[in-house]
């Protein structure tokens, strides 16, 4: 685990007697895409929520490599997008800037419309989330995440409930916009092996610990013993081209 952008050290979280995260160490390289995989209910989303500040970890630190600085400017993409249904697309996207001191109305408006155009959402600017498709809603949520120029975006199971075709469309969207805007991605997903096509590193969370960390190709060619049972049902499926 070298050249880390973000260092997670000894991160622990328990709910009552149940240990969810047990002293997790994880390095996220700069401009990379890291995906946390694991069984349902194992604590993948808890890990993201601890990193984003939505949950307070019981122990551990998260900071930029080589400094005491805590988590850098980060954005969070929720499973169900978490868009405000009584706000239009442009109001949703501009919300983080509008509420930030110092941003003028004109500046917010210009930035929102530039971003909407880049994400091909211009025609939907004045529509409400309920009036646009699920895929567009994902892009609106991504636009809202991107408006503050985050260094890292945390994706919480972005393809939950989508059919295979839309799933790949969302993965393509994340890969394309990561290349275009240059942000680091930490994603939680249970779409194995489909997610291997877009990720640089895979972290396997099991029993509160990171059981594997490395490139997906190594995982497919020679999976470590404890991972075989988890991957077996899915490895026979064809992996999409990156």
């Amino acid at each position: 685990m070298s050249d880390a952008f973000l260092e997670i050290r000894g991160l622990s979280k328990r709910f009552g007697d149940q240990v969810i995260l047990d002293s997790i160490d994880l390095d996220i390289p700069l401009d990379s895409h890291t995906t946390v995989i694991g069984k349902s209910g194992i604590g993948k989303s808890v890990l993201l929520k601890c990193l984003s500040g939505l949950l307070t970890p019981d122990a551990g630190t998260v900071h930029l490599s080589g400094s005491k600085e805590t988590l850098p400017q980060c954005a969070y993409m929720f499973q169900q997008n978490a868009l405000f249904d009584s706000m239009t697309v442009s109001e949703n996207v501009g919300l983080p800037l509008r509420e930030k001191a110092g941003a003028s109305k004109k500046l917010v408006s210009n930035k929102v419309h530039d971003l909407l155009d880049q994400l091909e959402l211009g025609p939907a600017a004045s529509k409400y989330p309920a009036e646009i498709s699920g895929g567009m809603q994902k892009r609106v949520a991504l636009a809202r995440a991107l408006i503050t120029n985050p260094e890292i975006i945390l994706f919480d199971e972005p393809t939950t409930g989508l059919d295979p075709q839309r799933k790949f469309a969302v993965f393509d969207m994340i890969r394309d916009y990561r290349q275009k805007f240059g942000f680091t991605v930490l994603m939680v997903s249970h779409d194995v092996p489909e997610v291997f096509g877009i990720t640089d590193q895979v972290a396997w969370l099991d029993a509160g610990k990171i059981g594997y960390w490395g490139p997906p190709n190594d995982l497919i060619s020679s999976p470590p013993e404890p991972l075989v049972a988890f991957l077996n049902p899915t490895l026979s499926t064809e992996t999409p081209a990156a």
Partner: protein
Amino acid sequence: MIGRIGRKGISFISEFGELTIFSVSSLLSLFRQRHAFEKLVRSIYEIGVRCIPITLIVGLFTGLVLGLQLYYVLTKFSSESLLGQAVALSIIMEIGPVFTAIMIVGQAGSALSAEIGIQRNAEQIDALQTMRINPLSFLVSPRLYAALICFPILTAMFDIVGIFGGHLTGVSMLGVDEGAYWNRIYESVSVKNVMDGFLKAITFGLLTTSICAFQGYFTNIKSRIPGARGVSQTTTRAVVLSSIAILASDYLLTSFLLVK
């Protein structure tokens, strides 16, 4: 049995403490955010303007019924000339603030609780936190300040319409002398009576809006059932607790204000 009562008591005190911290944090956070005035105006529209029709209708009918009931009681003592005084004091000091608060809870308080509860379930409150926006200042504090402004104004509207309702029954229908009706009100109602009524309205506004927002905000904790049923459960709880809070605080305030 004693243990159960003790646990309930501790749980009540703990929840009351949480509610107090929630309300004070929300009140303090309004001026630390941008576009506070814009949000305040929108909340005044939701809590105040939209509740005007129901307040006026209930105020009118309360005045009509009160005029009728009090007239028949007062005729037994040949004191029907006191009708104006009886109607006005009952409405200004007691019925106006209480009924107005209950009406606003039914219309705006339940909507507030459900809206915030749905936002909690849809992870919109979490989204605000990840955007470094304080959810209390964004969602709750404009509503609390709007309640502090709207409750006394709506109570004043209720009082005026209620007194006219009493006039309609007593003077226009039952033949009480018009001069006696207005003169008794003029002689008996003091500025203190009106201010006491407004004090009650402000207290009810703060209490009920805090309770409704609190129940919605923590719908994931307060309700054991997730999703839409959970929101419906916390909304009902918000209305019930608010109504109890209105009546209990009314008793305490009345005791305090009458002794003073």
